[in-house]
């Protein structure tokens, strides 16, 4: 890595990009979510400054950027996970199908049912594999045969069924890290959300498990809108249709530098900052 030149590194992304999912622009798809002039404050500290972006339906949108630039914080505003930390404040709006999720009369529980999340570290509940996946549907009152079908289908969709079908009643914590993360994906899709947010879902996984999750994401984008935060630029290049590059402004607030089709962002970035980042001059 020490000796790679800028053109070699760009070539690397181009190879990652080629032969992958269609890279058409978002012109012909509907916007599932819109983020408008979003500011996020921890107390008086502004962690996110004036982010505006449209997230197209049934596409994978990646958010990249250096550590601490607010990628995860931004992602967590999309399903109001940021609310869980005390003393935080949001300005601007995030809409889902035109409805502002920060509206006073919006029920945050219902929002989170429509916008699911997969976390950085696999976090299966200390329950059986079956109960982990059944957790969400049970909240909605599903039981019996229907529940079994949902669990099986979700595990199949998460490419985990064949590995666990004989041990559904063993603890979810007994699985390997990669399997646990796929279990968390299965758990998320069992409630049929419209959007799935993924917060560095592969950062705690080995390359093979990472590959499986990436395959899974490409499968899932036929049905779900996916937003993924990743540290790994090659991963963004491999899986996403659109990429957003975030950086810190001089006040250490996260800003959106550039947002566009992944191919364009990696091969022909319009901003100098983006080019510096993806060619490894900083970050």
């Amino acid at each position, binding site marked *: 890595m020490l000796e790679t030149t800028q053109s070699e590194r760009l070539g690397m992304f181009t190879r990652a990009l080629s032969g992958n999912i269609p890279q058409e622009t978002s012109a012909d798809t509907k916007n599932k979510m819109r983020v408008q002039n979003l500011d996020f404050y921890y107390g008086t500290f502004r962690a996110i400054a004036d982010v505006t972006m449209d997230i197209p339906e049934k596409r994978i949108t990646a958010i990249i950027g250096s550590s601490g630039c607010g990628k995860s914080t931004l992602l967590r505003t999309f399903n109001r996970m940021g609310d869980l930390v005390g003393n935080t404040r949001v300005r601007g709006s995030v809409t889902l199908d035109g409805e502002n999720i920060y509206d006073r009369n919006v029920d945050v529980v219902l929002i989170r049912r429509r916008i699911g999340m997969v*976390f950085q570290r696999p*976090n299966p509940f200390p329950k059986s594999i079956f109960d982990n996946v059944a*957790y969400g549907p049970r909240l909605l009152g599903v039981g019996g045969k229907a529940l079994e079908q949902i669990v099986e289908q979700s595990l199949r969709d998460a490419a985990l069924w064949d590995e666990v079908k004989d041990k559904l009643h*063993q603890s979810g914590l007994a699985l390997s890290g990669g399997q646990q993360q796929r279990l968390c994906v299965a758990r998320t899709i069992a409630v049929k959300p419209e959007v799935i947010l993924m917060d560095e879902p592969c950062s705690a996984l080995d390359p093979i498990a990472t590959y499986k999750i990436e395959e899974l994401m490409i499968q899932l984008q036929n049905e779900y809108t996916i937003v993924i935060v990743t540290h790994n630029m090659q991963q963004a290049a491999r899986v996403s249709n659109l990429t957003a590059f975030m950086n810190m402004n001089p006040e250490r607030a996260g800003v959106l530098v550039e947002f566009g089709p992944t191919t364009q962002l990696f091969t022909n970035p319009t901003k100098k900052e983006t080019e510096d980042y993806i060619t490894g001059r900083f970050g």
Partner: protein
Amino acid sequence: MMLNPSLPKPGAPSLGMSSAHYARRKITNVIMLTLTGAATVLAIVPLIWITAYVTIQGSRFLNIEFFTQLPTPVGVPGGGVINAIVGTGIVVGVACLIAIPIAIVGAFYAADHPNTPLGLAIRFGTDVLSGIPSIVMGIFAYTIIVLPQKRFSAFSAGVALAIIMLPLILRTTEEMLKLVPRNLREGSLALGASNWRTSVQVLLPAALNGVVTGIMLAIARAAGEAAPMLFTAFGSTGLVTDLNESTATLPHTIYIYAMSPFKDWQEKAWAAALVLIALVLGLNILARALTWWRARQMGLNY
């Protein structure tokens, strides 16, 4: 500070340290080690001493009758304390039914809202409550239940013990809930579960081992309380299962028998003390075994 990576020769003064300083350091170390060791032994001695002494004294007078018979008058041989064993069970059972639900629900609130006025009040209140002498709880239950009802009762004793157990269970549960990794809670909320569902279905099961241990410690503490019983359960020579009747309890029986001038009652006090210790110990072991087994099932071996 050793700058040289090679080990110093034993006994040799190292860089910048005079041999007198070195010797003094070694002596200080030996003295401190001896002191801490002695303190540890001193701390364990009373436990072993009490347990051994009660076992030796009590086991001499233990027999089947002791667990199955009602007490006999002074001088009449035989007899047991079945009334006190049953009474303790009933009183502690009532206390658990009152204290556990309130304590756990309160702990959820305190763990969830640590810096709100009510959350702070819960924490401060329970800390103060756990410092209040148990005899005060007895007088309290006497004033609010025994006096209006004009009768001593197992129920009033249960209330007194519940107040003793409440802060113990609440604080341990709160601490255990706080130890549950935050990402488990987020995982549940991200699936569209309410705070309440998350608490009951994810946090409580994950914290259950610690919660059960807290409950057991509280039961052990409450089951051994004699002072509040003087004002509430009052004691009885018959087998009582009615919550509105006064009843015998083990600690109270031990108190009465041990204070009596009669040798056979004093012997029974030793035996009753052994039963009480064994009961508490047995409960603890049972709870530990159950939670250990459950943790293994769930792959939760912390």
